[in-house]
């Protein structure tokens, strides 16, 4: 049994919008699954259903809701809290005592490379640093399931590649069950064990690709011919999915 399982999920919003149609797949610990698909096909909706923020109209999700880490498209930091206090938030909500909270926060801040910025407010951070803080916040919970909703869509290419490498290191260290959403095919191939292509709305899984690289992964795989070949295939499938 996978850690996160979607069985025949369909979603129709009250206004009649059909967002998802019969989506089934699972993600186990140590697996990193990425979904690529046209804009508006229902990817965010799927993650919200997984997290229990939305209820599917049909089908079921099997997952332990207490073990979900959710990284949103925006950093969603509290502007009135410093980086440290933002990172401590989740532990605070779960009643973890102060010493332990600070320890968890320091560890996570170290891990994402934000040491030295603990006392900065979000407004003085760059987009990439905000995303790191957001990532660190999720890390403090050491969630067995990690949902990422296009987390690096808003940062520049170089920062994005670096954040990808850091995400990879986190995955290699924690071996969570990862479900990642992106518009970037190279990001998908670089991170994942498996890539699904979703069709235009209502979203269905129309193609699946196994990534032939193991972990730990080096940034060098980006220059491997198999990387380019797989990216091409996914791109082709994605073009089909748009129509």
């Amino acid at each position, binding site marked *: 049994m996978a850690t996160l399982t979607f069985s025949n999920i369909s979603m129709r919003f009250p206004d009649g919008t059909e967002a998802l149609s019969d989506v089934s797949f699972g993600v186990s610990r140590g697996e990193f699954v990425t979904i690529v698909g046209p804009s508006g096909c229902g990817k965010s909706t799927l993650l919200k259903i997984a997290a229990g923020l939305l209820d599917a109209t049909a089908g079921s999700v099997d997952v332990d809701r207490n073990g979900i880490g959710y990284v*949103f*498209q925006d950093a969603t930091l509290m502007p*009135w809290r410093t980086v440290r206090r933002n990172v401590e938030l989740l532990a605070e909500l779960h009643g973890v005592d102060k010493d332990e909270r600070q320890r968890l926060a320091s560890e996570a801040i170290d891990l994402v490379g934000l040491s030295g910025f603990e006392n900065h*407010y979000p407004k003085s951070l760059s987009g990439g640093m905000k995303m790191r803080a957001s990532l660190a916040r999720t890390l403090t919970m050491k969630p067995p399931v990690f949902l990422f909703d296009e987390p690096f869509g808003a940062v520049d290419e170089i920062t994005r590649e670096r954040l990808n490498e850091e995400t990879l290191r986190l995955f290699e260290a924690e071996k969570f069950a990862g479900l990642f959403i992106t518009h970037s095919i190279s990001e998908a191939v670089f991170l994942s064990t498996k890539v699904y292509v979703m069709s235009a709305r209502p979203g269905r899984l129309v193609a699946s690709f196994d990534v032939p690289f193991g972990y730990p992964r080096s940034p060098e795989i980006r220059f491997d011919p198999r990387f380019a070949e797989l990216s091409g295939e996914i791109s082709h499938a994605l073009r089909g999915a748009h129509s």
Partner: protein
Amino acid sequence: MSKKARFDVRLVVPPVATGALILGIWYFVSYVILDPKRRFLLRPPHEVWSVGFANGDNFSEMMEGLLATSKTAFWGLLTAILLGFLLAVIMSQAKFVERAIFPYAVVLQAIPILAIVPLIGFWFGYGFMPRVFICVIIALFPIIVNTLFGLLSAEQGLHDLLTLHNTNRVTRLRKLMFPAALPAVFAGLRISAGLSVIGAIVGDFYFGQGEVGIGQLLKRYAARLDGEQLLAAVIVSSGLGVLVFTFFGWLANRVVGKWAGESRGA
């Protein structure tokens, strides 16, 4: 960075120049436009100073009035803050409560203050409480509106995050909605503080009895055609308005200045 602390000519010269210009126009009107017989309409600045401010008796009379007015405005504002905050929090909890209360807040706001003052005096007399009540009526609306707007301004993603972690209503209010509301709350306070001062003066002016505040003094000086003192009282009461406005601006900056707003070079 160090620029800020130093005396900056570009910051000081423009307002000083405007002030000088205003004084110049004032003198011009007093001495050139008005002939001596009609000069009582606008006394020159130095006479306003010597009669209104430099004369000990006159000045202390005005200061006592100012104190009485400030006291009324303060209690009115405090009541409006507590009440407005409470109402906004309740409205923020459910859309239907907002729909039930909001129209009446708008009605309250739409009542012309001059129409309600005699009624309040008629009902509740001319003591301290009715005056405070007038201040509350005039100062309440901006607090309700700004607080409610602020409470509802928290990012949806943060709400989702708290939902994800099973956060209850009270914690959500405390950790998300209250802090998110602060910048708007301060904007409302700034407006309401000024309005409360106006309410205190208007109430006092129309009641015309009870503890003597700036309102009664204004009325008295005007009746006596006491141009110098009238102008002095006008200056002092606008001074009070400016003071509370500045105070709340300063307070807002102290409390939310560190984190609010986008980073700007200023």
